[in-house]
């Protein structure tokens, strides 16, 4: 059905790079699910249906990883033997951390006062910053192979993801 030992990139028929053609990724993903999804094997026996379930879950995992900029970076670094989120590795540039502390304080205030425009502003700021980090990450991995720089970028992206979730939750609170 599918090769369970293949990495995410070869599973979805993409070159193993950080910069990917997301439209192609979407196409490959849909085509693959079109043949392996459990609904395509509803008439198969128990074993066949179980296999379809596992294959489809495996492809969903690959797609979700590659579609997400931070997860894709982390995964790609992993393929290069670099663990980007090891517990021991706490060093983050101080200026980055300070900036994020300030940002989180502002978010907290905006949440408490129900200031939606401020929250939406913060979201937009994060989106810009993420785009810059993604470009940096692509350069570091696909270009010079600067894995250490790539690792820092991935960790920053992860950090921003968490801040984004906080803002999302704060917005949800103001909508309740």
């Amino acid at each position: 059905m599918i090769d369970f030992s293949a990495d995410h990139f070869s599973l979805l028929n993409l070159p193993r790079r950080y910069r990917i053609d997301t439209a192609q990724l979407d196409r490959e993903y849909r085509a693959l699910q079109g043949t392996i999804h459990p609904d395509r094997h509803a008439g198969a026996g128990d074993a066949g249906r179980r296999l379809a379930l596992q294959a489809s879950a495996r492809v969903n995992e690959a797609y979700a990883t590659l579609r997400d900029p931070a997860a894709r970076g982390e995964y790609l670094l992993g393929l290069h033997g670099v663990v980007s989120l090891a517990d021991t590795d706490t060093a983050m540039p101080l200026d980055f951390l300070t900036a994020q502390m300030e940002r989180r304080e502002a978010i907290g205030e905006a949440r408490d006062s129900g200031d939606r425009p401020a929250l939406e502003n913060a979201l937009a700021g994060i989106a810009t910053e993420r785009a810059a980090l993604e470009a940096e990450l692509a350069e570091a991995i696909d270009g010079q192979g600067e894995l250490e720089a790539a690792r820092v970028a991935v960790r920053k992206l992860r950090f921003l993801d968490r801040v984004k979730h906080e803002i999302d939750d704060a917005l949800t609170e103001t909508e309740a």
Partner: protein
Amino acid sequence: MALLQISEPGESPAPHQRRVAIGIDLGTTNSLVAVVRNGSAEVLRDEAGRTLLPSVVRYEENGRVTAGAEAQRHLARDPRNTIASVKRFMGRGVADVPNIENAPYDFVDAPGMLRLRTVAGPKSPVEVSAEILKALRARAEARVLEGTSAELAGAVVTVPAYFDDAQRQATKDAAKLAGLNVLRLLNEPTAAAVAYGLDNAAEGIYAIYDLGGGTFDISILRLTRGVFEVLSTGGDSALGGDDFDHRLYCWVLDEARLTQLPPEDTRLLLIKCREAKEALTLHGVARINAELSDGRKVNLTPSQAKFFELTQHLVQKTIGPVKRALRDAGLAPADVQGVVMVGGATRMPHVQRAVAEAFGKPPLNNLDPDQVVALGAAMQADQLAGNRAGNGDWLLLDVIPLSLGLETMGGLVEKIIPRNSTIPIARGQEFTTFKDGQTAMAIHVLQGERERVSDCRSLARFELRGIPAMVAGAARIMVTFQVDADGLLSVTAREQSTGIESAIVVKPSYGLSDAEIARMLQESFQHADDDMEARALAEIRVEGEQLLAATGAALAQDADLLDESERAAIDAAAAALAALLSQGDRRQIKRAFDALGAATGGFAARRMDRGVQSALTGHHISELA
């Protein structure tokens, strides 16, 4: 059953072998069953020509159970034993149901799921729902199967997209209890998207806004050349038209200074409020006229403005989830091409206005909000039954509505699978021991978005035992969550540091143990002995017809393989079976059926030899090496 059928390659089996599969919309207020016939989906009607089956079940002292319009007539007269909106109680305990104090039932709280006390004993919401499903199954059997040799292959049953695991499991159990083979649990908005999308050849981003009697769902989908991809979903599984009725009811109590009503009066006024709510939509005016059991009279005329004022906050409650769903999908309202309205409660003008405002465009109302879910379910059922092979198949990629996680130290939840993940999905997380020599670990599975265990819904608890004694932090326990295409979770835990695997699979079951389901099944079979016999008879008749048809076809092709006495024996056995098919009882038919099978055994073997030989003669020897 000895005859081998050999059909031409590429030739489809005879039309009578088409597998009939139905789609069921098991609604809070109304339920429907639909089926695909001659390539198009249609909702099935009852003898009186009605499509909607009111989701009401009545239990009587003599053991009689009725579902639908007949039960509905007794709502106000026999409120304790006549159960409406049972869907609100699926997979729920007493503490989980909002406004439960106003429901005119006698609840028994039970671990996992409440029960309703009736004259026929305490009933689980699963059993009550099964009665609705049985009525729909009977309708399908009468309308589609009767007089044909087709069999019911199974059903797609819809659930609100925002149903959690407990509510889904309860729905699946109800279907099993009703004797249905569940091909798939399908999310209601996704079903609606299928019906809408295929009918309109829609492409792009669509939102489905579904406000029914008791549940609210919002799903955002991307439609791309036959792929229906759910990007995000949100909702409230305890918000619907019933709550609007309830607001009006509270207003009536206030206006008429009523307190402490008996259940008959509560039910009567709730019915009147619902009628008034619907009248306000249709005519802009309404009157609530009722005589209570103590002779007091209620006579009120709520204005539309009053009604909007009473219920605007309920409408607003749907907009938060809409915004969150858009955010989760990473989209702005302007990215949405069309908003499809589903569910009877979307007819209300203030709902229409709020949705138009949230999306910045008027919603689409060009389909029947009552039928679209059942139609989509029927289309999916037809595909899953294998009736469309290669014939313009579409694909549904759905998501889980709520995050799944595990309890960790300090009463916090570690999320394993985030909401809006595409299913099926499997994901593992490693945990370790907290104390030296710890040999067991408590695993607590939760669903919800909040960080604290107490704010999430507990799905299951189990213990992993037999962990080899080691220092704290040395054991490696992998806990794997798997969510299948029905959105149902199973959990596996395995200790892997030592190579000793102690794995346990947990299917959370929320209040209904397998033993209880087995007991309910048994009971329903006892009540339905006649039913069973009738079913078995229908089945053997179908098989008999198929065997006769196959025998006829085989004789037409290969009669030269038989000598005269063999041929005579087969003809006699076939004639005996044919004669019994319409009048004989099940046992007689079975005997004749077996006799024909025995008479044709040698014939089948010779036909197979010939079949193999003719297949071989078409090839060169070299090809077979």
